[in-house]
């Protein structure tokens, strides 16, 4: 099992969600987040005072998939979230040791 953490533009959430559901991903967790990579922030003015805002609003999406599903899921996310501009986000992949369904103690990929 693999965990995909994708930090994406908030406006791309719906497209990414639909793309994942289409390839058969059944669950995901979404968090409203703030952050930045190489993308620079912007400046805001309040009554003439300048504030530089470098942590921008993002959405973090976490999905745990079976090893066989991994590449398809990554492809679904990148194609749905890509605009080609700086600030499109990043995907991180890590190994998951165990998954347990709380309702009935099912373990492993069947619990996903």
């Amino acid at each position, binding site marked *: 099992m693999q965990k995909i953490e994708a930090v994406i533009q908030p406006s791309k959430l719906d497209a990414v969600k639909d793309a994942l559901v289409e390839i058969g991903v059944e669950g995901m967790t979404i968090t409203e987040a703030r952050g930045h990579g190489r993308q620079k922030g912007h400046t*805001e*003015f*309040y*009554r*003439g*005072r300048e*504030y530089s805002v470098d942590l921008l609003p993002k959405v973090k999406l976490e999905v745990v998939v079976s090893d066989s599903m991994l590449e398809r899921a990554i492809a679904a996310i990148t194609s749905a979230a890509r605009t080609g501009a700086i600030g499109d986000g990043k995907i991180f992949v890590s190994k998951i040791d165990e998954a347990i369904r709380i309702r009935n103690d099912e373990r492993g990929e069947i619990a996903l």
Partner: protein
Amino acid sequence: MRLRVAKVYLSLLFVLIVGASAVDGSRMMAQSASPASSTAGLSQTDRIAALEKQNVDNAAAIAAAQSAGDNAWMLVSAALVLMMSGPGLALFYGGLVRKKNILGTMMQTFAMMAVITVLWALVTYSLAFGEGNAFIGGLHNVFLKGVGLVPDPKYAATIPLQTFMVYQLMFAIITPALITGAFAERMKFSAMLVFMVLWALLVYSPMAHMVWGKGGLLNASLGGRFPTLDFAGGTVVHVTSGVSALITALYLGKRLGYPKVPMPPHSVVLSFIGACLLWVGWFGFNAGSALSAGTLATSAFVATHFGAAAAAIGWSVAEWIRQGKPSALGAISGCVAGLVAITPAAGFVTPMSALWIGLIAGVFCYFMVVKVKAWFGYDDSLDAFGVHGAGGTIGALLTGVFANSVINPIFGTGKPTGLFEGNGHQLLNQFVGVAIAWSISIVGTLIILFIVDKVIGLRVSVEDEREGLDLSQHGEEGYDWAH
């Protein structure tokens, strides 16, 4: 058998009722006919007396109708002015602070609604509007003694004195509440309460008495020594609160980390709603200051609206040129600046003059807030001085320029009122009024700050300031994200 008896009784009863109402009706007709028949036999002198009596009755009915109309508008106006404090200013200021201080900031305004009200009933109404000398009222009206439902013609001949009293109270509430913008996010709640009570006694009451009270030094309508035109409180409300705000900001010092730590408004949305409530409430503030529902109220209402609109445009254009974008916060700040500046002038100026006053105030206050504050480096956190002190001062002076006898012949019909009408002397009187307002605010506020600082201490501790006023002063949070 029994049934038949009952039927007879019932029909008898029916006949009785119908008969009785017929007889009663004819009696009523006789009554209404009787005056006509009685006057027919009267002599001419009696008829003249009857007509005179009718005339007096008509005059009384007209006066009662006017009084009812004026009183209705004044009660609505009083409620509108309270709305300026209640949700209006509390939201406007609340949105501008960081979210850990929103309740503390709103409570400062709300506390004025409670504390100043009680103080007003006990003593400050009497100090402001009671008979006294040129500087302050006496103690004749403490505990609202003698403040009943009969009008006081010197103040407002057509509304109960209690309406006048409660209307003026709403001004006494919002004025200290305006100061809270200067010391936002760092003053102890207890110290703030004591400061405000002393300020109401030592600064607001004398200033209100001088400008609006019987025998006041600056009173233009009741024969003051230096008749200063201040229709709705440019000097009494905005100069006093704005200048006192600057003094408290300087005395308390900057907020922790200012200006290095960014302290942007946590919700311009709340401020936006607050500013719009202020705009609407201001119609009660200015048009209500006509103290009647007549044409003068209309003049003040129109001038108020035009001043606010022009100032919103003035500030926005200045910002658009200098920063490249017209912000929502800029537009609403400009609108408030315009409302402040038109406050002394409404009820004296034409709609076109109101546009000029608003435009000048919008641009002027923009530079006070954005440039002048940065030059001097004081932390007037929410720009109480930049908007109210600066806007009130320029508005009071411009009133002396634009005041027009066609709108309000306060010095007599056709007599020149402002500079543009040829009464240059009025500008001098306006200067005197403004200078007195500045002086009493600086001296009074410094004395009060010194006393309160020695007795209670003005600022919250460093830890409390970091934690925020909501938790440290009130033990609660405005936004609880966990539930």
